[in-house]
């Protein structure tokens, strides 16, 4: 019965605390991952914006050397895996690594993904496209280079007014650092959850044992002793954690002892009366 009492007190607490801590950590990890990914995407967006703005003048001036230089300089950044400027049909015009793309590399994956948006008739062709691939470890952004009056009125170009998109800029950055940070966060959270679990369950168990189970065990032992006829003053002293229950139990045993003594005294008296009458 006592084993059941311990189990009944600790099992629900264990299930509730364990479950909620794990659930909380999973959800918290999900929130943090979403926030960090959004930050990384913002970084990629701002990088794309910088490249677009810095190439704008060169494009207007049809300065191909300057464009090549800008693409090469952007590619020299540690996190950048791919920078490409495509024409409106999806053919690369300026690239960081002309013709040296290894199949299966991040650059190849970014190219494959980016080309899907460049097909004519694709619904979101004129919009910025973003992709976060945690499994393959990259973040890619593709922006359309839209037509503007300066483009179709310039002497060097052959773009007509009716062409909406003149080309695309595609950038792929590695998310290795992000994945590493997330992995560290995961391990820390696991360790923290285990510590919280041990502390909570251990703490609850210790408190229950100290304040409830041990006093009940002592009372049970005292009740067994009293049932075997041990007098109240011979019973082990108990603490006061069970309060009135403990006091009342000792009072009952005391009253029983008193009744037994009274009975014994009455028996002696009767014997004396019997002896005197003879």
């Amino acid at each position, binding site marked *: 019965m006592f084993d059941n009492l311990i189990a*009944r007190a600790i099992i*629900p607490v264990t299930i*509730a605390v364990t*479950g*909620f801590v794990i*659930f909380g950590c999973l*959800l918290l990890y*999900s929130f943090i991952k*979403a926030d960090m990914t959004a930050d990384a995407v913002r970084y990629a967006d701002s990088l794309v914006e910088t490249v677009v703005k810095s190439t704008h003048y060169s494009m207007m001036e049809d300065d191909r050397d300057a464009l090549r230089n800008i693409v090469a300089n952007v590619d020299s950044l540690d996190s950048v895996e791919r920078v490409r400027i495509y024409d409106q049909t999806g053919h690369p015009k300026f690239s960081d690594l002309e013709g040296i793309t290894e199949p299966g590399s991040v650059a190849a994956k970014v190219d494959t993904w980016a080309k899907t948006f460049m097909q004519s008739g694709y619904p979101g062709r004129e919009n910025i496209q973003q992709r976060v691939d945690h499994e393959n470890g990259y973040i890619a952004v593709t922006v359309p280079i839209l037509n503007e009056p300066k483009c179709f009125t310039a002497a060097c170009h052959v773009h007509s007014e009716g062409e909406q998109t003149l080309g695309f800029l595609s950038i792929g950055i590695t998310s290795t650092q992000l994945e590493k940070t997330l992995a560290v966060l995961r391990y820390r959270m696991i360790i923290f959850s285990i510590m919280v679990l041990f502390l909570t369950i251990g703490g609850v168990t210790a408190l229950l044992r100290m304040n409830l189970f041990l006093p009940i065990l002592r009372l049970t032992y005292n009740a067994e002793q009293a049932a075997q006829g041990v007098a109240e003053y011979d019973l082990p002293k108990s603490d006061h954690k069970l309060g009135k229950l403990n006091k009342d139990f000792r009072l009952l045993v005391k009253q029983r002892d008193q009744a037994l003594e009274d009975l014994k005294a009455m028996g002696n008296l009767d014997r004396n009366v019997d002896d005197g009458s003879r």
Partner: protein
Amino acid sequence: MTQETEAPLPDINPLRKQVQAKIKRLELHSSTGLWILALFTVLSMGAFHNFDFLPPLSEGIRSALGDGPPVKYINWALVMYGFSAIILILTQMASDKKPRGALGHFGYLGVFYLFYHFSEGLSENFWAIFVVGLTILGLQSYHVWNYYHEKIQEQREILVELDKLMD
């Protein structure tokens, strides 16, 4: 001189049978929590595979349903639901009330899976729903099992008393 005769005891066999039937009924009730837990595990297996065994919804139904709510709102709803459900079950346990609502919890969790599925956040948040579901339904099944076992124990004691009367 009249001879006093003892009145015969009423037949207690029907009563015994009633108690035995009640024990069987209570035993059946005590396993309902586990059945719902098993059902939730099966549903979770489906959710883990993104419900790809189900036929896709037609465009008409999809557009009638509209876009799913943002994943972060569903996350907050799940936190609120998980917290309230655990507190509710612990309160039920503490006040020794008849366990209720296991099927309701199963329904809520199923709806969460569906919301995440339609908002395309199921793969990211699957383990969170699964863990909170296991916790809620695990606690509920423990409460159901505990509650009905106590009732079964009471009925068994009555049965023992009836057996003594028969002897």
